[in-house]
């Protein structure tokens, strides 16, 4: 098993390299889709995630004892965006929204006004609008709402952003799952089982 895993790791690293070169050949603007899979990336992310969570804990503990899941999620998203190094639109949108939040928060603090924590969540929970717009456009709209900061993005760029966002989300899920696993010591059930082909 270990050997198989190591082999797959090796193969994957090879594939990563191959894909990287392929991407570079095509278009300099194309984002490397495999960067979220690299171990270094995961390491970096997990590091920052842990720190962020600690920070959240520290920040939240004086105010409310329990840090809400939302805070953690925001922290995780923020860390993910930082890990993206600002190359993608969604990462920049996340960071921008967080920055805006913080600025607003600080300003409000100075003015001694309590600001309800605006999540600034650009994500919609369950978009279920059904209109008579052509199906493709409708779905593109839904997708644009899902990916942060991609509301007015053209369709091909939207697809590009989605690709990177999915990869980043996958890594985030893995990291957080492992973290919770470490913390709780119990296997974390995935909410939705992805059907593997």
């Amino acid at each position, binding site marked *: 098993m270990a050997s198989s*895993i*190591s082999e*797959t*790791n090796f193969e*994957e690293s090879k594939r990563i390299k191959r894909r990287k070169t392929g991407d570079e050949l095509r278009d300099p603007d194309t984002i490397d889709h495999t960067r979220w*899979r690299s*171990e270094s990336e*995961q*390491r970096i992310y*997990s*590091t920052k995630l842990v*720190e962020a*969570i*600690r920070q959240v*804990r520290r920040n939240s*503990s004086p105010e409310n*004892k*329990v*840090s809400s*899941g*939302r805070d953690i*999620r925001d*922290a995780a998203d923020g860390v993910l965006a930082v890990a993206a190094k600002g190359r993608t639109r969604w990462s920049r949108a996340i960071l921008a929204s967080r920055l805006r939040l913080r600025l607003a928060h600080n300003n409000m603090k100075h003015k001694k006004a309590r600001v309800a924590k605006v999540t600034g969540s650009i*994500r919609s929970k369950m978009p279920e609008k059904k209109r008579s717009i052509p199906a*493709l456009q409708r*779905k593109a709209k*839904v*997708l644009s709402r*899902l990916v942060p900061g991609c509301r007015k993005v053209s369709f091909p760029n939207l*697809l*590009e952003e*989605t*690709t990177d*966002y*999915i990869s980043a*989300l*996958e890594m*985030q*899920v*893995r990291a957080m*799952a*492992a*973290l*919770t*696993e*470490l*913390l*709780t*010591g119990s*296997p*974390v*059930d*995935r*909410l*939705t*089982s*992805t*059907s*593997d*082909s």
Partner: protein
Amino acid sequence: MEKESTTPPNWTTSSFGMEIQPNELNCAAADQLPNSFFNPNWDNSVDHSDPFDSSLSSIVSSPAASNAAAIPGSNCLMITELIGRLGSICNSGEISPQTYIAGNTTTNNNSTNTSGYNTPLNSPPKLNLSIMDSQIRGRLPINGHQVPFHPTLVPFSADPGFAERAARFSCFGNTNCIGLNETDLPYGVMPGMEYGKMSNASSNQQFKLVGSQMGVKENNKQEGNVAVKRKFIRLPRPSTPENAELGDSREGSSVSEQIPGGEVSTKVDSDANARKRKSISRGKAKETPSTPSAKDHKTAVDNEESNAKRIRQDEDAGNEKDSAKAKAKADSKAAGDGNQKQSKDNSKPSEPPKDYIHVRARRGQATDSHSLAERVRREKISERMKFLQDLVPGCNKVTGKAVMLDEIINYVQSLQRQVEFLSMKLATVNPRMDFNMEAQLSKDIFQSRGALPPTLYPLDSAMRSIPYGYQPQQMQALHGGIANETENRFPVNSLAALSRNPSVQLPPMDGFGEAVPQVSAPWEDDLQSVVQMGFGQNQQQSFHGSGAAAQMKVEL
């Protein structure tokens, strides 16, 4: 009288005819002269003649008078003498109208006369004829008239070098020369052609400006070379006015007039006119673009030729432009360039396959600028959909954008939900954080790490599932790093991670204490147990969360 009523040029020509005719009459060639009406008019016309004509008539009349009663043979001699005198007086100017008469008029005697004239004076006057014709037509802004006999042309005829220059002019009017004399015109054409080549060479520099724009960026060298050559051939005509003042104006006028008259499309017209104007302006020639002396039948052949040439040139140029533009556009990836012309010639078989950088119309496909841009866009979209298909599990069988988008949306939503869930869990799982514990944790982590290198090595391969740097390198670094219990901030990220990990792991350590035998400190046990558990779970692949992630990773 008819002759008097006609315009002066015609009258002058007719005066010639009249002058000739009496000689013929005297030569007893009266049988050949059906135009007897010339005779009675002769005196009258002579009376009305201008000085030159009167002098001419005097010359004519003198031998005629002298030979009034001469025998036909002598009269024929007189005729030849008269011819010679006429030739001497006005080399080409006088003869050209005569030949003109030969070509144009319907008078038999004139035709016979000119035919008679032509035989002895075949070669030289023909050259002069063309020259004079061009000169006359170019200089004199008389519309549609026959060649006027201009007195000022006489001194030109005397100039020997003028003939050479005139011959040179005839080059870009070489077609005119061709059209001018339906008979063979070797002298007129040959020097013209030579000069044409010279002018090609001389004007190459000018046209490199024009041609370079068209020809540099081309891939179809054939078309480019051909078109460039054609440009060179065409454009010398207007450029040579630098050397001579006639050709350009005449040529331009004739051509520009013929273009609208021809069957050329408007686009070609505008292009040709635009290019013509450009070339003319470059040539900086004196222009009389409005000289409408173009409706000569002589230029009929010229018209067709130039039109054909121009059409071909324009098409090629247009195609070159299109290809260049297509290339430029594709290179710059500017989609939707509406100014791009149709590059149908470029879509012919000799075309390279389409790749991502260069956009060309593929064979058998529409070459509209819009469709090209559309195709580029579609290719981009399909390429990205392919990436997504690889990314989203279970989409290999799915075809079509709509269904794919559905799957993608579902997947993104599921991922986001997972993140939320995990964050909730993290929030609930870590209620307490302690600095001391953190330090202890870090210490124990190092110790435990040091103790667990063999078990952690296999974990290296499963690092994806447990991303917390349980790697031997980090272990060893940590192992040597931590010395004190205070919270240490290690410069290495991994060290920091590991140092903080124990702090995070502190709370649940109680649950782990039992499982780990070796651990000295509780968080060590926790760490070890977790590590072993994670490892074991990875091995057994019974771990749903990270295991599934590992599986996903492995299979992907």
